[in-house]
């Protein structure tokens, strides 16, 4: 709960500007009568606000309306030129888009031809491995195959004959 002084200070600016309801303004006035500290605060607010009057008003040169209307005529003229240039600009945009599209198509065609060259034919074993042994796809194919074949051979050589 704010103290009476806190409350009064929060509405002092509005009180000085005459923006408070009559009853609230009256309550502020009564508090200020009794509170020296808030009275001093109000005085500072009032005086600092008054200092803003020290700012000189703007010097207005005569003939502003004439200059303004001349600028308006310029603006209208510019708008008219813009409107006249607009169809040409649009035509240019369409041509640029068509050219860009054609260039893209040609580039795509060239790239496709370039990357679509036939690969070097694979040996039958390479072809079989690449088709069936997917987990070896990323390995150094020929080395792996040689090792596997050697292991197979060893295993079949060392396997005891059934029934012996």
């Amino acid at each position, binding site marked *: 709960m704010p103290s009476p002084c806190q409350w009064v200070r*929060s*509405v*002092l*600016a*509005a009180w*000085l*500007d005459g*923006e408070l309801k009559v009853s609230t303004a009256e309550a502020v006035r009564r508090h200020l009568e009794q509170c020296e500290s808030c009275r001093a605060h109000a005085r*500072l*607010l009032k*005086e*600092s*606000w*008054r*200092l*803003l009057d*020290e*700012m*000189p*008003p*703007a*010097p*207005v*040169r005569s003939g*502003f*309306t004439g*200059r*303004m*209307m001349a*600028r*308006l005529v310029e*603006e209208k003229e510019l708008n008219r030129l813009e409107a006249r240039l607009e169809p040409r600009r649009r035509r240019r945009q369409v041509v640029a888009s068509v050219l860009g599209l054609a260039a893209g198509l040609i580039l795509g065609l060239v790239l496709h031809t370039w990357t679509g060259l036939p690969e070097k034919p694979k040996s039958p074993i390479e072809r079989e491995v690449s088709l069936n042994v997917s987990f070896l796809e990323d390995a150094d194919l020929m080395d792996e195959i040689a090792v596997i074949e050697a292991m197979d051979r060893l295993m079949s050589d060392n396997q005891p004959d059934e029934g012996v």
Partner: protein
Amino acid sequence: MLTFQKGDELAFQELVERNQSRVIGLIYRFISDAADAEDLAQEVFLRIYRARKTYKPTAKFSTWMFRITANVSLNALRSRSNRRDDVSIDQITDFGDGPRAMPDPDSRLPDTDLHQRELQEKVQEAIRALPEKQQVAVILSKYEGLSYADIALTVGCTTMAVKSLLARARDNLKDQLLLYIRTGRGRQRVS
């Protein structure tokens, strides 16, 4: 405005004639440069001209005009401060370690003028140091005499928000200008 909206160019001329000093005056409060204030005032009237077809007379014309004026002024202030931030090292010539030019003694102003000018600069600095919305509220309240309700319409917030904006703004101004207040005359700086 309504006559002008119907396409009467003479009505626009009259609108400019009638409102120019308010618009220029208001911009000047923000930017403190007479030549720039006139250029920006032209910009304000051009915006009014361009927006004539979309303007709906739901609020007072002056509220709408003040809103445009405040926006144009704040934009100008923002681009000014951006330009200042963009100053390259080549443009900075005073590094603070060389001999400084002394003011010409013959060009000294009388003491009262000096105090007056210093005070005006301080007031200007104090206003400019406020956050944008507080600046607008202070300028509209102090120099245009707008009520809290009209400021609220111009800034686009509630009357309660304006009340709080101005309370904070006036506290800030009091703190900034304290040195110039104590004598009670506002002209003599307390050292």
